[in-house]
């Protein structure tokens, strides 16, 4: 029997490996170390993230397949990995004080966050549907648990259970889709699928088409697009706020990373078949997200619907599917990571145990007491609404101009109208903060240094990406060469 061991290319999974090892070491540490030593766990996890980030930057520009074409190292994967690492780092920074206040200071929290990041990174670098599935399961499992991390709070447990049940169901759809595509093409490898589909005469195999439809359901659930969005508001509301921040960005980016690679690369010959499905999904997602967000009283629920709407904008860019469209997905995801995490950071800081301040009306008069915090929140709200000179504005500009260029003028108009609608509920918070008198006394805020650093990074990112957009768009354009 001759065994051929496939070539092992460690550098291709370097960042994943770094984070996995960090997570395992920290897991041991959280069991054996003394309680004082355990306080170092969040900082050690930051060290691991920083190391992985450096590794990603040093690998930029290289491209290679590894492990028998299971994973691929290219700029596209690296771009998303950098987004995941930034997301993870900001989440860790924002969690330290929050967990202490809530009385859940456990090392396992950071371990699970790191493992979730590992899963997301595998999903971004997947060159095989099996890796897509395993990466998705790894980060989903970690996030199901993290959503229920505040075990004594019924809302947190409810959120975890809801996400778990619906998530498991949607994974079933994804897996069935993968199975049918395997049945039709005889391979799960994305390159193999691409070669098979581009050779086959158009539209012959119904198996492939059902498989494609089921994949859309699976990915649509993870990125929270309508009509697979039902879980989003409840889960976002109940989960610990730091985890809400994490899952409003991380899984969405991971979902889109795999969604784009599978549809724009492997299934690109079938573009005429899936593009109209995505067109409808984009319109529904944007419209429902923005319209329902207006009626929300709880700020976490409002941001949940806003995150649905943002998934809709990204779907618009996916429909455009040309160079600018695809690059603007990456650009928008990066901008979205900074502005959304920042907004949740302010919510974490402003709410505290016992007095959560989760209603939008709680923000009235905040600017008089905390001018700096209100200004920071206003920047994130402006960016989410898409007002220059923030990153959100440029992102939407790229997306809609890509849609117009690709000939989807109707879609671009619906998008712009939606964007105008969204200004109402984002600016309402700013109006509340600056133009209303406070409804109650505010307790004194004591931001931890880590939180301050996180907010500074988020503000800096939001403005920097918005003011010098061409640099980041160029990076995004370099990244998508692998898909074209």
């Amino acid at each position, binding site marked *: *029997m001759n*065994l*051929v*061991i*496939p070539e*092992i290319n460690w550098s291709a*999974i370097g960042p994943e490996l770094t984070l*996995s090892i960090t997570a*395992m070491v920290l*897991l041991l540490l959280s069991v054996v170390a003394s309680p004082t030593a355990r306080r170092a766990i969040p900082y050690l996890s930051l060290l691991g993230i920083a190391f992985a980030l450096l590794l990603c930057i040093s690998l930029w520009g290289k491209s290679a397949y*590894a*492990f*028998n074409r*299971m*994973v691929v190292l290219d700029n596209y994967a690296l771009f998303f990995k950098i987004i995941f690492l930034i997301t993870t780092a900001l989440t860790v920074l924002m969690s330290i004080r929050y967990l202490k206040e809530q009385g859940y200071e*456990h090392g*396992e929290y950071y*371990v*699970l966050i790191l*493992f979730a990041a*590992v*899963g997301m990174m*595998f999903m971004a670098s997947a060159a*095989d549907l*099996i*890796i897509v599935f*395993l*990466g998705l*399961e*790894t980060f989903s*499992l*970690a996030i*199901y*648990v993290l959503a*229920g*991390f505040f*075990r004594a709070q019924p809302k947190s447990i409810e959120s*975890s259970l809801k996400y778990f049940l619906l998530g498991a169901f949607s994974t079933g759809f994804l897996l069935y889709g993968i199975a049918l595509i*395997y*049945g*039709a*093409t*005889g*391979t799960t490898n994305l390159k193999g699928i691409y070669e*098979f589909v581009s050779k086959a005469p158009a539209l012959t*195999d*119904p*198996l492939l*088409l*059902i498989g494609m439809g089921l994949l859309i359901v699976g990915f649509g659930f993870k990125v929270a697009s309508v009509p697979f969005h039902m879980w989003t508001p409840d889960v976002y509301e109940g989960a610990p706020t730091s985890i809400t921040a994490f899952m409003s960005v991380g899984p969405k980016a991971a979902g889109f990373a795999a969604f784009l690679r599978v549809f724009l690369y492997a299934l690109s010959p079938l573009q005429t078949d899936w593009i109209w499905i995505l067109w409808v999904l984009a319109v529904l997602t944007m419209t429902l997200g923005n319209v329902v967000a207006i009626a929300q009283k709880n700020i976490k629920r409002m941001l949940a619907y806003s995150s649905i709407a943002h998934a809709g904008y990204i779907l618009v860019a996916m429909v455009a599917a040309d160079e600018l469209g695809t690059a603007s997905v990456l650009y928008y995801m990066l901008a979205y990571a900074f502005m959304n995490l920042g907004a949740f950071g302010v919510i974490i800081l402003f709410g505290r145990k016992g007095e959560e301040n989760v209603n939008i009306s709680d923000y009235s008069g905040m600017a008089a007491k905390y001018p700096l915090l209100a200004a920071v929140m206003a920047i994130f709200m402006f960016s989410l609404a898409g007002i220059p000179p923030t990153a959100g504005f440029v992102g939407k500009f790229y997306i809609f101009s890509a849609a117009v260029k690709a000939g989807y003028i109707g879609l671009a108009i619906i998008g712009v109208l939606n964007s105008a609608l969204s200004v109402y509920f984002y600016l309402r918070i700013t109006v509340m903060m600056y133009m209303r008198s406070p409804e109650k006394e505010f307790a004194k805020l004591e931001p931890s240094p880590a939180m301050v650093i996180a907010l500074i990074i988020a503000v800096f990112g939001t403005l920097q990406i918005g003011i010098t957009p061409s640099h980041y768009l160029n990076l995004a354009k370099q990244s998508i060469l692998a898909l074209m």
Partner: protein
Amino acid sequence: MFETFLFVLLAVVTTIAAILVIVQRNPVASAIYLIITLFCLAGIYLLLSAPFIAVIQVLVYAGAIMVLFLFVIMLLNLEKEKKLIYRNRLQKVLGVFLGGVLLAQIGMIFSSVLLEGSKGKFPAEKVAALGNTEVVARLLFTDFLLPFEIVSVLLLVAIVGAIVLAKKQI
């Protein structure tokens, strides 16, 4: 001919048992029907000439996991379920309707054309010649080495998660 008969029999029993799993009120009865479903699935795997997966299915699922299931059900001593949520009736009707539409669509496509997927690297004849378990093992440690390792990370996450959620004091 005999194979087709066996397949239809197994498929019918699997489907009926699977439906019974979700409509039973008694959790122990549900679990028993689940065991029947898993056994029948193992039979279908055998028909697909995948004896290794069939054996694993019986050993792991119908054996180990179901024993744990029954233990948990008995230890928890479940009370009679209470209805907490009064669901929107329209939602239920719509859900059933859409589910039916999806089923009909898939059924229509499967029945309208003779599906013939393309073959992978290891068609049934080759597997039979090499030995089923051997092929699985060989693939697992060569081509599918990375997924195999990711699964171990996945299981670690699951274990940590279970402890975090269930242990009295972390």
